[in-house]
């Protein structure tokens, strides 16, 4: 379809404008991550937009190798929380995707578990804060407080609804004929699911998994309540990046923020071509 030059100009103007605005916080974070302490200026007069004396100190600092002499020693470095975040978000994603995919298939093909759509929507609607007291008591009873599996498990549960709904729409969309053909040729149902259905669902699995991973990766509240030391995640750990010498260690927080943005971005790039297709939720069937 032809578009006028005026429209193209309008398009670029609007898009670039919005991109520029939306980049401000991100760029602020990136710039902050490379600023020496004198330029943080959260509470002060002269504002530094871009580091005048760029430094990697903030990154070194959170990994325990500070060359800045002014900050109270860091008792815990960021390595462990990064690992904790990666592990729990990944295992949580695995749990949600496994249970969600299986249940979605079960409902979509065999009509089992008709209660799940509603139950899972309610589960997702419910503010986690309101249910954390019993969860804390349960987790404590099961010895899952400050435990990687405990955190992964709750992540798997709270993101299960998304995994389920996304996958269900894909299964609903997928033509049954292919599976039926394989069944006729003598494959068992189970084999069909593993060998035929799942491989076909790879794009759907990838985009759903990314979505679920980002949700897990972002969590602050649940980790705050269910971890203490060993498995504190990035957002929880970030709260401890403050010092009586200088106040909030914004540079260190920003540096950690930059690092924390890397896994979702890498995953996002890896599955970019599936991303749009993956988010139609099968809503466009006629």
């Amino acid at each position: 379809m032809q578009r006028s030059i005026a429209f193209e100009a309008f398009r670029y103007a609007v898009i670039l404008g919005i991109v520029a605005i939306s980049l401000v916080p991100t760029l602020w974070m990136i710039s902050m991550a490379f600023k020496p302490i004198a330029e943080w200026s959260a509470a002060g007069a002269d504002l530094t937009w871009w580091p005048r004396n760029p430094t990697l100190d903030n990154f070194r600092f959170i990994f325990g190798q500070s060359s800045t002499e002014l900050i109270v020693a860091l008792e815990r470095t960021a390595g462990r929380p990064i690992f904790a975040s990666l592990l729990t978000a990944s295992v949580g994603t695995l749990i949600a995707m496994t249970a969600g995919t299986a249940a979605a298939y079960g409902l979509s093909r065999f009509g089992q578990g008709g209660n799940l759509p509603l139950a899972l929507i309610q589960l997702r609607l419910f503010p986690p804060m309101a249910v954390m007291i019993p969860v804390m008591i349960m987790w404590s009873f099961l010895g899952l407080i400050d435990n990687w599996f405990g955190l992964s498990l709750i992540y798997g549960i709270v993101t299960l609804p998304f995994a389920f709904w996304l996958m269900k729409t894909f299964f609903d969309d997928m033509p049954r004929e292919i599976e039926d053909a394989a069944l006729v040729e003598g494959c068992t149902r189970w084999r069909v699911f593993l060998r035929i259905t799942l491989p076909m669902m790879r794009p759907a699995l990838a985009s759903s998994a990314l979505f679920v991973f980002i949700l897990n990766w972002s969590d602050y509240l649940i980790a705050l309540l269910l971890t203490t030391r060993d498995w504190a995640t990035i957002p929880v750990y970030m709260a401890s990046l403050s010092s009586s010498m200088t106040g909030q260690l914004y540079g260190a927080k920003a540096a950690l923020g930059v690092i924390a943005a890397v896994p979702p971005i890498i995953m996002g790039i890896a599955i970019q071509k599936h991303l749009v297709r993956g988010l139609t939720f099968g809503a466009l069937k006629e």
Partner: protein
Amino acid sequence: MTEVTTLMPATKKAETQANSAARLGLWLTLPAQLLVLFIALFPILMQVYISLTDWSPLDGIPWWRAYELWIGLLNYTDLMADSRFWGALWRTLFVMLVCVPVQFLLGLGLAVLFVDDFRGKRVLYSTLLVPMMVVPAVAGYMFFMLFQSGGPVNDLLSFFTSEPVRIAWLSDPDLALIAVMVADIWQWTPLMFLILLAGMISVPQDQQMAAILLGASWWRRFFTIVLPRMKSIIIIALAIRVIEIFKIFDTLFIMTGGGPGVATETISVYIYKVTQQELIWSYVAAIALAILIVLSVVSVFAIKRMQRGQDG
């Protein structure tokens, strides 16, 4: 197994297949069912139980002995009169009523601009998705700095108005609410955009062509073909944001802690405070159950609508 079934009479074979399929279906849904049961059963029972008592961990008795502090429905009647709860609820709804439409309109507008190809589309598209990838807690700290009176936001405003702007965003009840909404809009418009773009790309081209050939203007096509065709995906996109904003906590809590005063106190922040600071856990249970009941009604209604939408 299949070899055996082929030898059976046709009806019996079909029956067995149906049975085994049903069994497989059960097995497949089992993990999800168990997880739901696991997370729902004990918490609901416990919440129901302690919500009828005056129990707080400060009372020095374990929760299962909360019956010693039985107060019946007092927590619920308190809740009815709890202006902070209603305030928080109203504030949450207000944030929802502002943020969701803004995110929707921005996302929709961007989707319109991105729906056909142009130079630089991929790069711009990827850049727009970045806010979604920033961990909300970090976003909270960054927005806290951005909204300081001597911070970047005011600096930009000063640049555009060419006179010094020194608005203390986070110290003013109204502006603080705006600031946290800006943060939410910043972070989640990309998701809205992504979903709506996916939906818009999937609107059949020939329908649009047909409308053009019938003489429909761009606007007419947009409102009579594109939007109605995207109806279900719009509902999904809105539903996701409504659901998530109802629970809004992370970024907001780090930015303002619900303050100043209760100016940015949402449901989750309020529950957090009652849980962690005032420690009236029986009351939290009552709040939780009240929310659960309301949400159940809402979601049953929503599911019904969605299923009707899919059938129709």
